[in-house]
C-alpha cells in the first residue's frame, strides 16, 4: 500500500512549468530520496504533498496520501499536516519563531497533535530522542547552534507521531560534522519508528547514505527512479551519470607545479591575530574574542594551500586580513617581501592578489554590466588606455571559457556557475600571483562544481598562480590542494599533505572532520 501517490503532477507559475508530468509512489516505511539541482522542482514536489504550494501555482494532476486524495478544505489539510505529516526545512533559523523558546514551540506542536494531556511524558521523551538536553527547553533559537536548531525542528516534526516525514535539504546549511550527526539522527529515528521518509537534497552522498529508493529530478521531470543500489551502480539516464561523475572528486593536481616551493614564500604571516572586543561600554565584562589567534603560516609560489575548519573557526577572518579587507590586531603579514597590516596594503601589491567570493549571486552589482564590474580592479594598475583595458577584459573572460559579448550583459542573465566563472575572471584581470578562494564551489550545483574546479586548476597551470582555498569540504580540498591547514578556534592545529593528513589524522578536530565524511558511492 503506497503511503504517497503522485500521479501526473504538473505545477506551473504564470505559464512557466516548474514541475511537469511527475508520477511517483512512496511505499509505507520506505526512505525515499529526491535528488536534483536548484530549480529542478524537487522542493515544489515536496510542498505539493503537504498541500503547501504558493497560491500563484497552477496545479494539475493528483496527489493522494494513504489512499485518499489531499483534502481541498484548508482546515482538513491543516489537520492532516498537524497529525500525519512532519516537515523539516533547510534553514532552521527562519523556520523557528525567534520570540518563542524551543520548549514552547515543541509544546505547541504537541498540542496541535492533540495529545497535550500527556505533555509531561512526551516532551522529555522527544528531547531525548533528538539528542537535546532538558536544559535546552528554555532557550531561544538564537541561543542554539545550527545543529541544535535542526534537532529542535525534528522534535517538532516528530511530536505528532507522523507517518511521513518530509525533510527538505535539512543539512545543507550545516557544516560537515553537524551534517553527519543530523543525518545519522534522522536515519535512527526512521528505523526506530518505522516512519516513511521523503528526503530532498542536492547532495548525492547524503541521499545514498540515507535512502533506500531514489528519484532523480532534472528541469521539473523525474528522469530516473529506482532502488539506491541500481541507480548508483547502473544509472540509465545520462543526467544521473553526469551527476554521479560530478560527485566523485578526482585528484586534479598530479604534482605540485615544478617551479614550486623552492622559489620562496609569496605570503607569510607571523603570529597574526584578530581580536574583537565585546561588551560595548564595559570592555572588561566580556573577554575579547580572538577570531584569529597567533597564526603563522607561509605559502610558497605555485602552491595550492587549503584551509579547512568548521564554521566560525576564523578562516574567513584570516582570509579577509590577507587580502586587505580587515586590519590585524597583532602580528605581521608579508606579501612578496613587503610587510603590511591589512587595509594598508598598497595598490601595487593589491593588484598581485585577489579574492573569489563564496556566493556568486552577491558578488556582482546588479546594476552594473559585467564589463564594468570586471574592469573595476583595473584602477589598481594606474591609468590605462581604452584599448588596453578592453584587451585585458577580453583576455580574462576568454580565460574562463566565456565570450567577449557577455561583457555587455547584466549579472541576472547568468547562472550560478557562469557567475562564478565571471568572478574568477574578475580575480584574474590584474594578473595576480596569489588568488584566495573562499568556498569557491559550495554555493554551486554539483554538476557545475567539477567544471569550475577543473577551470581553476587549468588556470593555475597556465598562469603559475598560487591558491589559498578556504573550505570545509574535504573531498574538494583533497582534490585540489598540495597542503592542508586545519583550523580550530582561530588556531592552526594541524597541517600536512592531504593524503597523509586524512588517512592518519592526529588532532581531534581533524579526526572528527574525517569521520564525518560521507561514504563514497561505489561505482
Amino acid at each position: 500500500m503506497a503511503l504517497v501517490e503522485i500521479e501526473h503532477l504538473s505545477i506551473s507559475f504564470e505559464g512557466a512549468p516548474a514541475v511537469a508530468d511527475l508520477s511517483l509512489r512512496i511505499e509505507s516505511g520506505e526512505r525515499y530520496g529526491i535528488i536534483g539541482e536548484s530549480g529542478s522542482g524537487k522542493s515544489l514536489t515536496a510542498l505539493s504533498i503537504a498541500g503547501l504550494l504558493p497560491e500563484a501555482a497552477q496545479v494539475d494532476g493528483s496527489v493522494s496520501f494513504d489512499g485518499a486524495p489531499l483534502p481541498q478544505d484548508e482546515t482538513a489539510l491543516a489537520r492532516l499536516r498537524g497529525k500525519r505529516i512532519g516537515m523539516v526545512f533547510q534553514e532552521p533559523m527562519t523556520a523557528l519563531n525567534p520570540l518563542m523558546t524551543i520548549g514552547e514551540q515543541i509544546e505547541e506542536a504537541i498540542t496541535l497533535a492533540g495529545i497535550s494531556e500527556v505533555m509531561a511524558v512526551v516532551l522529555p521523551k522527544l528531547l531525548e530522542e533528538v539528542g537535546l538536553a532538558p536544559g535546552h527547553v528554555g532557550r531561544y533559537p538564537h541561543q542554539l547552534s545550527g545543529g541544535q536548531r535542526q534537532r529542535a525542528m525534528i522534535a517538532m516534526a516528530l511530536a505528532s507521531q507522523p507517518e511521513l516525514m518530509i525533510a527538505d535539504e535539512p543539512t545543507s546549511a550545516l557544516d560537515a560534522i553537524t551534517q553527519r550527526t543530523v543525518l545519522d539522527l534522522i536515519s535512527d529515528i526512521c528505523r526506530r519508528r518505522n516512519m516513511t521518509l521523503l528526503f530532498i537534497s542536492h547532495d548525492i552522498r547524503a541521499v545514498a547514505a540515507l535512502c533506500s529508493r531514489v528519484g532523480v529530478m532534472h528541469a521539473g521531470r523525474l528522469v530516473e527512479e529506482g532502488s539506491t543500489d541500481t541507480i548508483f551502480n547502473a544509472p540509465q539516464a545520462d543526467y544521473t551519470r553526469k551527476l554521479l561523475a560530478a560527485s566523485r572528486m578526482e585528484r586534479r593536481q598530479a604534482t605540485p607545479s615544478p617551479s614550486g616551493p623552492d622559489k620562496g614564500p609569496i605570503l607569510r604571516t607571523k603570529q597574526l591575530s584578530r581580536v574583537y572586543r565585546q561588551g560595548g561600554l564595559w570592555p572588561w565584562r566580556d573577554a575579547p574574542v580572538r577570531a584569529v589567534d597567533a597564526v603563522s603560516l607561509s605559502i610558497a609560489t605555485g602552491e595550492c594551500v587549503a584551509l579547512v575548519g568548521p564554521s566560525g573557526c576564523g578562516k574567513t577572518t584570516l582570509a579577509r586580513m590577507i587580502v586587505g579587507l580587515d586590519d590585524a590586531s597583532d602580528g605581521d603579514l608579508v606579501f612578496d617581501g613587503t610587510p603590511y597590516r591589512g587595509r594598508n596594503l598598497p595598490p601595487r601589491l593589491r593588484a598581485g592578489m585577489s579574492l573569489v567570493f563564496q556566493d556568486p549571486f552577491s558578488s556582482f552589482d546588479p546594476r552594473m554590466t559585467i564589463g564594468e564590474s570586471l574592469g573595476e580592479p583595473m584602477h589598481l594598475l594606474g591609468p590605462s588606455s581604452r584599448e588596453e583595458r578592453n584587451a585585458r577584459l577580453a583576455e580574462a573572460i576568454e580565460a574562463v571559457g566565456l565570450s567577449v559579448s557577455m561583457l555587455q550583459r547584466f549579472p541576472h542573465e547568468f547562472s550560478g556557475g557562469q557567475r562564478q566563472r565571471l568572478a574568477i575572471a574578475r580575480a584574474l584581470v590584474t594578473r595576480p600571483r596569489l588568488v584566495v578562494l573562499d568556498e569557491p564551489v559550495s554555493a554551486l550545483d554539483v554538476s557545475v562544481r567539477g567544471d569550475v574546479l577543473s577551470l581553476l586548476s587549468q588556470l593555475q597551470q597556465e598562469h603559475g598562480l598560487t591558491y589559498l582555498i578556504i573550505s570545509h569540504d574535504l573531498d574538494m580540498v583533497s582534490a585540489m590542494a598540495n597542503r592542508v591547514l586545519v583550523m580550530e578556534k582561530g588556531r592552526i592545529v594541524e597541517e600536512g599533505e592531504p593524503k597523509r593528513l586524512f588517512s592518519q589524522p592526529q588532532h581531534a578536530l581533524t579526526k572528527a572532520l574525517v569521520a564525518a565524511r560521507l561514504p563514497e558511492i561505489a561505482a
Partner: protein
Amino acid sequence: MIWQSVRRHPSLVIGLMAAAGFALLGLISLWWTPYPIEQINIARRFLGPMADHWLGTDHLGRDMLSLVMRGTLTSFVVAALGVLIGVGIGVPLGLAAVAWGGLVEWLVLRFSDLTFAFPAVIVAILIAALAGPGETNAIVAIGIFNIPVFARVARGGALAIATQDYVAAARLAGLGNAAIAARHLLPNIMSLLIVQGTIQLSLGILAEAGLSYIGLGTQPPATSLGLMLRDAQSLFLIHPSLSLVPGLTIVLIVIALNIAGDGLRDAMDPRLRHQGLSHGAG
C-alpha cells in the same frame, strides 16, 4: 519590465495619475486662470457654484477655482523644493555614514537626532523670527525637516547593500569610500529614495498648509491652500464651502501621493517583485 509592474499595481496608476493631475492643474495656473487671483470684487462675494465661478467666490469676491489652482501650485513647489533640499543634503550624509563609518557615522546619527527633535513648525518660527515669514522660509523649514529623514533612509538602505560581496570586491579593487558610495551604494538604493520622496512630498504639502495656516508660510497677495483655509476659518459656520474646497483639495492630493508611494514601493521592492518562481522553487 517597468510597464509590466505598473500594470500589476493599479493603485500606483491611480495615485500617480491623480497626483499628476493636480500638479498639471497647478502648472496651468502659471499661464492661465479663469480670473486673475488678485482681482477683488466685493459686489460678487460669497457666490455659490455657478457657470461663471465653478467653485464660487470667496469673501473678497475672488474666483475660488483660480485660487485653488494657484494654491496647488504653491503647495507643490514648496513641498518639492523641500524634498530636494532633504535629498541633496540628507542622502550624501547617509551614504557617508555607511561608507566611512566610525566617527562620521556617529556624527551623522547625532546630527539627525538633533534635527528630528525640532518639528518643522519650530524651525519655521525660528526662521520667521529671524527673517520674517514667507514662502522661502517655509521651503527652508520643510527642507531642514527632510534632511534627517533622507539621511536615515539612505543609511538604512546602504547598510544592507554594504554587506554584499560586490562592495568588498570594489574595496579590493582599490576604490575609495566616495567612489563606492557613488558607484555601488547610491544606484542600489535609488528605488528606496524615490518611494520615500513621494511620501515626503505629501508630508511637505501638509506641512506647507500648516505653516501658511498659522501665518508663517505664504503671504498675501500670493495664495496657497493653507492660506485659503486660514482666510475661511472665521466664516466656517456661515460659508462652509470656503473651507471645504481647499481642505478637500489638500486631502485629495495627500491621498493621491500616499497611494502612489505605496504602489511604487510594491512595484519596486525586489523582494515582492520576484515573488513566485525564483524563490520557493528548488
